[in-house]
């Protein structure tokens, strides 16, 4: 996987480069927005990590120019200034994800993994969570190697949980993933699906955070 890192702070850039290379990413690094645009023209990377505070131009500007030529390139923004407006501005300009400094390197790696997965159907679509394996391409779900039969809603629910394994998904996030706006959501419809999933997956894989939501055990 080829990553272009646009970051002007050398110690940070060196550290991130090192950490990504340890995970077998091919990393190129530039410190100026213009250099980034030039590099992308010549040798487009698979993923772009873009710092918003660059010395020569605003990261949002880089992103806007980039989107005219490379609309598909996945972009992860890094910024030290975090406000809701900036977040919205960044996403409006076409960023795929957003990470605030100071970030945890494992968080960065996790975001890159998600982008990679979205990126190429050619890459593995198989996600393994403990005894569970989930293949979104073939819609195959197996537990300890045995195939499971799930209803459509159960499958959709499990997909969200698997893709965000280790993170608590709020009830509203899960409901909006399961039902469109015009479909009425029964007050305990979510509980019913979770209950059914637990019957098939065993009681311990999905954890309830009372009043908040559900979480699938970490990978």
């Amino acid at each position, binding site marked *: 996987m080829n990553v272009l890192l646009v970051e002007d*702070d050398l*110690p*940070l850039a*060196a*550290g*991130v480069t*090192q*950490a990504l290379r*340890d995970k077998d990413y091919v990393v190129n690094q530039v410190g100026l927005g213009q250099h980034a645009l030039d590099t992308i023209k010549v040798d487009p990377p698979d993923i772009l990590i873009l710092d918003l*505070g660059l010395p020569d131009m605003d990261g949002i500007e880089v992103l806007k120019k980039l989107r005219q030529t490379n609309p598909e390139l996945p972009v992860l923004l890094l910024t*030290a*200034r975090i*406000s*809701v*407006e900036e*977040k*919205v501005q960044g*996403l409006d300009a076409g960023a795929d*994800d*957003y990470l605030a*400094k*100071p*970030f*945890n*390197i*494992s968080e960065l790696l996790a975001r890159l993994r998600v982008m990679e997965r979205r990126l190429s159907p050619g890459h593995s679509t198989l996600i393994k969570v403990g005894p569970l394996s989930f293949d979104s391409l073939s819609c195959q779900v197996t537990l300890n190697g045995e195939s499971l039969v799930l209803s459509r809603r159960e499958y959709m629910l499990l997909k969200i949980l698997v893709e965000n394994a280790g*993170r*608590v*998904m*709020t*009830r*509203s*996030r899960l409901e909006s993933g399961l039902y469109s706006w015009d479909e009425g959501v029964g007050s305990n419809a979510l509980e019913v699906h979770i209950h059914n999933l637990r019957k098939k997956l065993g009681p311990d894989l999905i954890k309830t*955070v*009372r*009043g*908040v*939501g559900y*979480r699938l055990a970490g990978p």
Partner: protein
Amino acid sequence: MKSIRSFLIIAILATITLVWFIAALQGYQSGVSEAERLFDDQLEQVAQLTASLGGDPVSINSPPRIAYQLWNQGRLLLKTKNAPEAAMVELQPGFDYSNFGGYRWRTFVYPHGADEDIVIVAIRADQSFAMAEKVIVEALVPIVLSLPVAAILIWLIVRQGLKQLRELAVSLRDKQPQDLSPIVLSASPAELEQVVSSVNSMLTRLEESFLREKRFASDAAHELRTPISALMVQLYNLENELPERSEEVRNLRTSADRMNHLVEQMLALYRNTPEQLATNFTEVDLYSLAQDVIAMHYNWFEEKQQQIELTGRAMLVKGNRFALETLLSNLLSNACKYTPAGGAVLVDVFMLEKDRVQLLVEDSGPGILEDEQQRIFERFYRVGGDRHASRQPGCGLGLAIIRNIVDAHEAEISVENSRFKTGTAFRVIFTATTGGVTHEPRFLS
């Protein structure tokens, strides 16, 4: 408070009244002397006329306000009934005053003819004064009656003249604390122009320094966060490269984490002053926000095997979403930190009364002594200092940040004992917004 308007009205009215009465007095005096002159002319004419008639007895029956005597060589030849036997006045030719018959008289002695007749004519002086007074009173009455009319007119004029001043006062009074835009008056007279331009230049300077401070904080955030990120990433790499867990690296990690935490808290403290927060208020569902914040920080509780539970239902309050998120995560972080492993934390959002929403965060920690409950919102104050049983590192800014956010939302916060056997409860009470639950735009989580 003294009012310029009533001062002006009273002062102008007093001046006008004074000037009018001085003029009236002058008028009275000149009226009296004018009356005197008229009577003198009349006396002279009567004297000449009577003298030329030669003391015709028919003419002796004069009106009672005129008296007449004719003398010759010290003898009284003729007199009117109202004249005394003695000379009415010394026999010096000319005008004089004299008192007889119970009245004051104006007299005129007029020597006449070759036989040295002397005619004395007198006229009642009090009647001439009365006439002058009557003239002056007639002139004064309309002036006195017009005083109220003048007062009303002056009041209207002064009111109109001070209109811009009042407008300025109102626009200054109604200015929101965060509104630093210049004041604009519909028409500003020369006298007020100076005041308005001074106030406006002051507002501009204030806004500039405010923006400078804001930029500084934003730059500081960037300048501090980037090297801290570098430090964390390098530490991560170092930890991976070293074959074994080293004490030095662990200490480095602890220090880096503390520094990171302190910088974030200082930035949050700055960002969440009421002046900074006043903009960007929207309707926020406190319950779904609590869901998001708990989901975001669930690992805190998991690491300490603590039970976290949210109860309640959707409640809208007006606020800054980002600040409310900081408020909740600070309350949750405190609850987690000061509660031992295996403890419990409860979050509850509910309608207290018709228009008040309560956020309650309770823990099963050791609790806070009542006299310490008063002090905990001071900056850098930490319960029990670093010797607290939880041995938690911290900078003591968390509750100051919470206080700022609570103040900016005009909410109330109180600390009490939780419903657990021991433990602390933080109660924040917001004013609910009216209207139903609406869906605000959701940001990427």
